[in-house]
């Protein structure tokens, strides 16, 4: 049951009605039960085992950490707790992946069964469990004494498979609060779910058709089609992942729970550090707080060099978290190098722009946003390409033949506008898709852009919830019809489902 399926919507509706009807203290037990059923419905019995192991170990270790008197003892509990969680992550996430991609192991019956242990969601709830233990060690969080509440903290179904990765101090207090029906929150939640479904089914999955046409077969393309497909993938992964997050946040709201906002217009960032403050926020905060900062402080004598090395290590690990393949490793490394470079260059540029009085210059800002988007899109090549060889092919063929393409374009436009010449010219860049599909894509992207602009300009950022009934319901229905008629129902998984 994926969270963009009809079955999931029915499930959420059923859980909500039951949740609403049962008495106060049973509500959280019901949510826990629903979360376990949801997880079990992913059709692999060992999933619950992996989840139970992480829950029990982190719960017990949290209590012992708090009870330990001496700092050495606390450190021992902390390190062993983190290590055990990493062992679970390795067993249920990396080992199966290694076995299934290594032919000599996957064909060996002594090993092949391991590939079946692959556990969706574990990378997310293991990070959450580790942050829980570290926060108790740092004494910024009290351990949760109720096992059921703790289990729900790790397994709450809207965020179980793909996050957001919640801090104990954000989510645990909310699980202790008695539920109160709040009509406004309900409306916000439902609208967020609807937006998420639209983003996923109408935009992301439509983009996927274009992107897959190229990226599943890169060797047959050179130049502009590769560039277009890479830009489209940058859009796809944003719409796909933020759609999941919208649905997760929306569903959680129905139960009166506010989860962490994971995205804040990331492609409007004007630098790579700013991009990471806006992209997959719950994850970037995690790696910065629990990997980067301790490393940076450990190497503080080395000043900027210490920060730069800490950033490279942090983002390399972030790549490995996504998967032990060269593509993800290079992706992480590139972001690490970008971030490390900004340690040295950003103070220089800041001073330069200040001296030239360009700090508030709009043209400079647009240029910075454009450059940042291109730097990020470049890294997505390694994230998306099927193999490192494919990625290297894309990188080395991105700009091939661009000059002649542009000359051809000019020739087809000048001296007189020549429609048939233009159509002939554009043909190879449509990535083999039909006109209808292209028209839909262009229209929905335009709508998404328009919505982003309206929201950026409105003060409360609550469009269309603050509009009159007529406009509001018009938009609700428009989106429902768009999903039904323009949606792509190929049942593509969410991209981040694999992590």
């Amino acid at each position, binding site marked *: 049951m994926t969270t963009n399926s009809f079955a999931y919507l029915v499930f959420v509706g059923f859980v909500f009605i039951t949740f609403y009807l049962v008495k106060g203290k049973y509500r959280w037990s019901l949510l826990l039960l629903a979360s376990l059923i949801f997880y079990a419905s992913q059709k692999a019995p060992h999933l619950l085992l992996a989840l139970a192991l992480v829950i029990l170990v982190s719960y017990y270790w949290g209590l012992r950490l708090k009870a330990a008197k001496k*700092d050495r003892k606390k450190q021992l509990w902390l390190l062993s707790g983190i290590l055990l969680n990493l062992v679970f992550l390795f067993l249920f996430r990396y080992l199966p992946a290694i076995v299934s991609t290594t032919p000599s192991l996957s064909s060996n019956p002594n090993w092949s069964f391991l590939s079946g242990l692959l556990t969706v969601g574990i990378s997310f709830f293991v990070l959450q469990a580790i942050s829980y233990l570290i926060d108790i060690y*740092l004494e*910024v969080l009290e351990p949760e004494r109720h096992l059921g509440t703790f289990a729900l903290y790790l397994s709450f179904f809207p965020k179980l498979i793909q996050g957001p990765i919640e801090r104990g101090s954000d989510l645990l207090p909310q699980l202790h609060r008695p539920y109160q029906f709040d009509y406004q929150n309900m409306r916000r939640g439902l609208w967020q779910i609807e937006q998420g479904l639209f983003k996923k089914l109408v935009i992301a999955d439509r983009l996927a058709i274009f992107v897959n046409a190229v990226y599943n077969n890169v060797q047959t393309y050179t130049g502009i089609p590769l560039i277009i497909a890479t830009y489209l993938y940058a859009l796809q992964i944003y719409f796909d992942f933020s759609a999941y997050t919208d649905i997760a946040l929306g569903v959680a709201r129905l139960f009166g729970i506010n989860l962490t906002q994971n995205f804040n217009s990331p492609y409007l960032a004007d630098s790579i550090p700013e991009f990471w403050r806006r992209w997959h926020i719950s994850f970037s905060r995690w790696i*910065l*707080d629990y990997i980067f900062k*301790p490393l*940076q*402080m450990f190497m503080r004598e080395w*000043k900027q060099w210490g*920060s730069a090395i800490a950033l490279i290590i942090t983002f390399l690990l972030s790549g490995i978290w996504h998967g032990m393949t060269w593509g993800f490793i290079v992706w992480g490394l590139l972001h690490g190098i970008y971030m490390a470079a900004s340690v040295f260059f950003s103070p220089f540029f800041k001073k330069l722009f200040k001296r030239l009085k360009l700090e508030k210059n709009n043209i400079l800002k647009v240029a910075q946003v454009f450059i940042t988007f291109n730097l990020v899109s470049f890294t997505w090549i390694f994230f998306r390409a099927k193999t490192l060889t494919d990625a290297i092919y894309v990188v080395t063929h991105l700009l091939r033949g661009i000059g002649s393409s542009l000359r051809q374009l000019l020739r087809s436009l000048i001296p007189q506008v020549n429609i048939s010449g233009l159509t002939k010219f554009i043909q190879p860049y449509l990535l083999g898709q039909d006109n209808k599909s292209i028209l839909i894509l262009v229209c929905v992207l335009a709508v998404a852009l328009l919505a982003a602009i309206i929201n950026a300009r409105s003060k409360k950022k609550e469009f269309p919830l603050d509009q009159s009934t007529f406009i509001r319901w018009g938009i609700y229905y428009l989106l429902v019809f768009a999903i039904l008629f323009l949606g792509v129902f190929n049942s593509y998984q969410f991209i981040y489902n694999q992590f």
Partner: protein
Amino acid sequence: MNIMDSLTEVFCSIFEDNSIVLKPEMTANDVEGWDSLSHVVLILAIENRFKIKFNQKELLTLRNVGDLLHSIESKHPVINKK
């Protein structure tokens, strides 16, 4: 000179701004240029100035200037009494 004055001096020299007036509830958001990168330089300067060494746990739980002051004081009770 008490700890607060010395600390203010360090802040002024690191962030190149002599008008900084520290208050215990101040956070990185209240001082221009205090980000995660300049934070390392600041911590290093404080350690050198007061001849102390912070441990990881202290560094990871600092929330504001008050916490910073408290950490320095806990390592320098003598200075505190002056």
